[in-house]
């Protein structure tokens, strides 16, 4: 279950419309490294492990990403508010306007609609945590690219906040992965990954056979 708080995680107050910039920022909503994919990735991956710590982390970061999706959407919405046709005509935003007017639609900066193929839920938590760390870095790079293109401090400020969160998430996923990999020496961990299953069965047989009752 989720519950909605009527506030943004970090304030977005953009007073000057800029449809060309909106067309770029929208990528962090529905693009290949955007917040929609990030949230769906972590919330989908939670079921592949019995490690309660990792489930907690995926739940909490997946939830925060929903809040980031809302922030990116707010930026796009404010950048496309009160536009005249003169503001739209001849800009990169014109093609978007034909398909979506000024509605917020999950797509990449290149206009490709959101695709669930941008993420995996592999059913192997160690594999998934590796992807999660890469995903945070890819999103961080995308925010860096946006920050190089943005001049308006009102847009720059919330984007900088979002970029910083990618770094914290990367760190937390790294810690989760390390704690996990260190557990490989323990009996329970072999059950987590199908790659270890055969070894696990053989090991159990070995343990059983070597008992002296």
């Amino acid at each position, binding site marked *: 279950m989720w*519950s*909605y*708080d*009527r*506030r*943004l*995680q*970090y*304030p*977005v*107050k*953009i*007073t000057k419309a800029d449809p060309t910039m909106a067309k770029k920022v929208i990528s962090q909503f529905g693009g290949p490294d955007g917040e929609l994919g990030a949230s769906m990735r972590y919330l989908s991956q939670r079921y592949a492990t019995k490690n309660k*710590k990792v489930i*907690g*982390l995926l739940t*909490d*970061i997946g939830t*925060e990403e929903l809040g980031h999706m*809302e922030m990116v*959407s*707010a930026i796009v*919405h*404010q950048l496309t*508010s009160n536009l005249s046709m003169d503001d739209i005509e001849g800009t990169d935003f014109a093609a978007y306007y034909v398909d979506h007017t000024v509605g917020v639609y999950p797509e990449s900066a290149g206009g490709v609609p959101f695709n669930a193929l941008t993420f995996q839920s592999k059913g192997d938590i160690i594999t998934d945590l590796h992807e999660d760390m890469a995903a945070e870095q890819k999103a961080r790079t995308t925010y860096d690219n946006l920050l190089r293109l943005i001049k308006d401090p009102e847009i720059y400020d919330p984007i900088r906040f979002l970029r910083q969160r990618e770094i*914290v*998430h990367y760190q*937390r996923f790294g*810690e*989760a992965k390390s*704690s996990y990999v260190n557990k490989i020496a323990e009996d329970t961990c072999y059950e987590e990954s199908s790659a270890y299953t055969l070894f696990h069965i053989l090991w159990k047989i070995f343990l059983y056979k070597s008992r002296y009752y």
Partner: protein
Amino acid sequence: MMSIEQYQLMQYINQVSFAIHDTVLYLDTHPKDECALDYYHKLIPLKKQAVSVYVNTFGPMNADQVNSKTSWTWGENPWPWELEGC
């Protein structure tokens, strides 16, 4: 348009909530860190009190915080992504 008082209280709630959330992520991977757990427990009542003042003064922040028994106020104020909102 919201008042300075509302904006400032919302800013405070955002700051305390962010501190709690970032501590939660840290505790997820460091569950035995007593210092972080103390910090978490120090922040929770600060948020509770600020949210209670906000809800009583400016309206609901969550759909289960509608105080009015005569009208449905959830949809009355600006939404957070609106320029005049929080």
